[in-house]
């Protein structure tokens, strides 16, 4: 077995050590006040939170699956009109942070709060993840299986449930896992919509009674819940892995007279997920345009763009190193490190933020409240996202080319840089874009760790929501959506490319 270059080892190990920090922090806090932590966990309130959080996770997962799968199926496998237009619309909410969506609704409907509000907003915000995941899987299905099933006696709807869905189940399950993790760790929207889940309770325990031990105890429960969900997904993911080949002709199901109903349904979802929040933000922005502080807006824009692009690049470098290690060298340690980075993904950003405040201020004060601290936080939070995006292109770079390169006298490590990385580069770039998009939208860790006097669109937006100053918040929200829309367009282009394959 070959050994990876030292630089890769160093980068990957650093990332791993960083990923362990938040868990170490939790351990420290719990160790410090074990009795109090236990008392916190034994309160009835913990059970209530468990119920609330579980209910929200289940409800949002189910509805996001239904919405995302329907959108994916209708746009890739049915004859619905304007399919590619609807596909773009379906992915568009990716550019709208869920707290911005929440803000859009709250500012339009006073009293928009609680379970239903949280469920609606999070469903709309997360269904694009299911849509994209399922779309990618749907276009890989050999549609000949549908026809075979028809000749073997299945009607159209039965084909959908017995042949099509089972084939995209692994992709759908993985997407739903993302959705569930998203809901578990969601902070901004839930805080605005005032539904008591673990993240909100952790935050309240922390800033309400300044009790870090109870906060840590609740965070631990949240961590366990997340691990449970990941385990569940691994267990029930499905028996087979979808083949990457896309053989045969793609066929679309003729909806006939249902075509109009399908269009109406697709349009309705987009009205809710994009139309209403954006219209609301636009209206408030116009109202607030008179009192708009332009330098402040530009300063925040610069802050956001700078942080997002810097983090996008750095995190992609880390992810590339780990992916190379795990995929190209296939050592057990490499694979283990990859898994570990997923486990940390479970922690809500609030906890990661607090852990880094603690370690930063007390152990590494020289980088505390610098941009680098924030980059580290983003690294811990979003490394798995980058890994997921970057592992695939690296795994797909043909192994034969490496052998050819080495036979031509290029040493293994240089081959990596001369052959593998250039081939995987477009995929790595897409990964960087994805990370940048996520960083743009990140809120709680940014609030805690940003350098003093650095503001981003997200933090300015958050400040303004404190006194429900919608007209002040709206321009920041609008600009954030526009900036986040750019990387989202790249992702959208990938979705469209997948769609064009279907039509061909």
């Amino acid at each position, binding site marked *: 077995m070959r050994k990876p270059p030292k630089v890769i080892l160093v980068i990957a190990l650093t990332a791993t050590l960083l990923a362990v920090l938040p868990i170490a922090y939790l351990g420290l806090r719990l160790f410090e006040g074990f009795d109090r932590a236990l008392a916190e966990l034994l309160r009835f309130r913990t059970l209530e939170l468990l119920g609330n959080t579980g209910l929200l996770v289940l409800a949002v997962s189910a509805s996001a699956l239904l919405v995302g799968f329907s959108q994916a199926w209708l746009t890739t496998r049915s004859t619905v009109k304007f399919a590619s237009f609807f596909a773009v619309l379906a992915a568009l909410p990716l550019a709208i942070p869920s707290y911005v969506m929440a803000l859009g609704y709250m500012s339009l409907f006073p009293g928009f709060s609680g379970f239903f509000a949280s469920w609606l907003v999070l469903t709309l915000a997360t269904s694009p993840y299911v849509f994209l995941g399922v779309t990618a899987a749907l276009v890989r299905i*050999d549609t*000949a*299986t549908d*026809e*075979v*099933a*028809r*000749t*073997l*006696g*299945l*009607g159209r709807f039965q084909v959908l449930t017995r*042949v099509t869905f*089972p*084939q995209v*189940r692994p992709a759908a399950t993985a997407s739903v896992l993302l959705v569930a993790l998203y809901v578990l760790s969601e902070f901004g929207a839930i805080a605005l919509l005032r539904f008591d889940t673990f993240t909100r309770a952790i935050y309240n325990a922390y800033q309400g009674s300044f009790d870090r031990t109870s906060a840590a105890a609740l965070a631990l429960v949240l961590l366990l819940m997340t691990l449970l969900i990941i385990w569940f997904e691994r267990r029930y993911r*499905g*028996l*087979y892995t*979808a*083949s990457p080949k896309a*053989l*045969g002709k793609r066929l679309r199901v003729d909806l006939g007279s249902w075509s109009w109903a399908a269009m109406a349904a697709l349009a309705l979802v987009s009205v809710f997920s994009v139309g209403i929040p954006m219209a609301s933000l636009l209206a408030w922005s116009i109202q607030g345009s008179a009192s708009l502080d332009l330098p402040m807006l530009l300063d925040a824009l610069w802050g956001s763009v700078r942080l997002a692009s810097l983090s996008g690049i750095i995190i992609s470098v880390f992810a590339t190193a780990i992916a190379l290690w795990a995929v190209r060298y296939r050592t057990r340690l490499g694979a283990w490190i990859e898994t570990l980075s997923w486990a940390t993904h479970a922690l809500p950003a609030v906890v990661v933020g607090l852990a880094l405040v603690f370690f930063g201020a007390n152990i590494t004060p020289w980088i505390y409240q610098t941009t680098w601290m924030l980059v580290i936080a983003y690294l811990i939070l979003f490394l798995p996202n980058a890994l997921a995006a970057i592992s695939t292109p690296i795994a797909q770079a043909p192994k034969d080319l490496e052998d050819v390169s080495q036979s031509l006298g290029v040493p293994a490590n240089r081959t990596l840089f001369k052959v593998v990385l250039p081939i995987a580069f477009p995929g790595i770039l897409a990964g960087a874009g994805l990370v940048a998009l996520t960083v743009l939208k990140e809120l709680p860790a940014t609030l805690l760790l940003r350098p003093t006097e650095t503001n981003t669109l997200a933090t300015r937006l958050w400040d303004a929501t404190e006194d429900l100053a919608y007209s002040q918040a709206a321009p920041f929200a609008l600009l954030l959506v526009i900036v986040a829309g750019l990387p989202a367009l790249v992702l959208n282009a990938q979705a469209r490319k997948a769609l064009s394959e279907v039509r061909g």
Partner: protein
Amino acid sequence: MAMLSMRAVKKSFGDFEVLNGVDLFVEDQELVAVLGASGSGKSTLLRLIAGFEKPTAGTIELAGNEISSVSKVLVPEKRNIGIVPQDAALFPHLSVSQNIGFGLAGWSSKAKAARVAELLEIVELQEFADSSPDKLSGGQAQRVALARALAPRPAIVLMDEPFSALDAELRTRLRLDVKAILQKEGATAILVTHDQEEALSLADRVAVLRSGQIVQVGSPTEIYNSPVDIGIATFLGDSVLIDGEVKNGKVVTLLGALSPLNKVTEGQVGRVAIRGENFYLLPNPKGEGEVVGQVFFGHDAVVEVVTKGIKIRARSNGPFAPEVGMRVSVWVRGSVNFYPG
């Protein structure tokens, strides 16, 4: 009574006419190969029979019942047909047994299990019963696809280029297997293919499809020996075309006077199609032909010879084949088909 009857079936997609009046009859327990080049409308023909497409004109009957017409198309699931797609298209989320039993809804679980076991035995894949389809080789997957299609005892099985994704050796072996399986099941089947060897070796009858019409139907030997036109003749075998004129009942060509297989009229001008195996090469330092190329296959070889300004490709069997640069005399053995015009 024919199991399947297609009468004057037409199919257009927009302005593009794919099938232009197809008549095709398949008898019970017969295997008919529809032979055509790509783009000839073979797949459309199958999709019409399966009910995935609606004809623009004409009717299709299966076991005496009309299943497709311009006004009415019976849905695929009610037709009692089986299909074997090009790349098997096994359900990736189901095991081999589950794939085979997929169409046996409504059977008792005992009957179902027995039927699946029976088919597993016929296709000789008992040990793969519980495997996932991705564990199968291409040939095995096709056998499962065939078993799946046969399981509900369909009125007819439609096979769409079922061997095209396989390598040559496997293809030959699987053909024999498939023929045997179909015979054991007593199944009626249509096979569409662009591979003349496949059509000729497998089918009871071959129908040649060209430009949306069936231009010739017959037994493999009929089709091979008596192609009705020059197009079929070149399509069916490695033929060389040489100008000739009918004189005294023979066709006079640069390579000599040849006996025609078909009926000819005195004084007709046209071309003869001579297959590689009809040439006989005799090494002769003074011969008029010169060997310019040779492809050696082991059991035989194809030898390219230029003689009298004509380039021919001769199939030379036996251990001896002339080598490049040798001079040869060229003879034509046996009769040839003459096509006027």
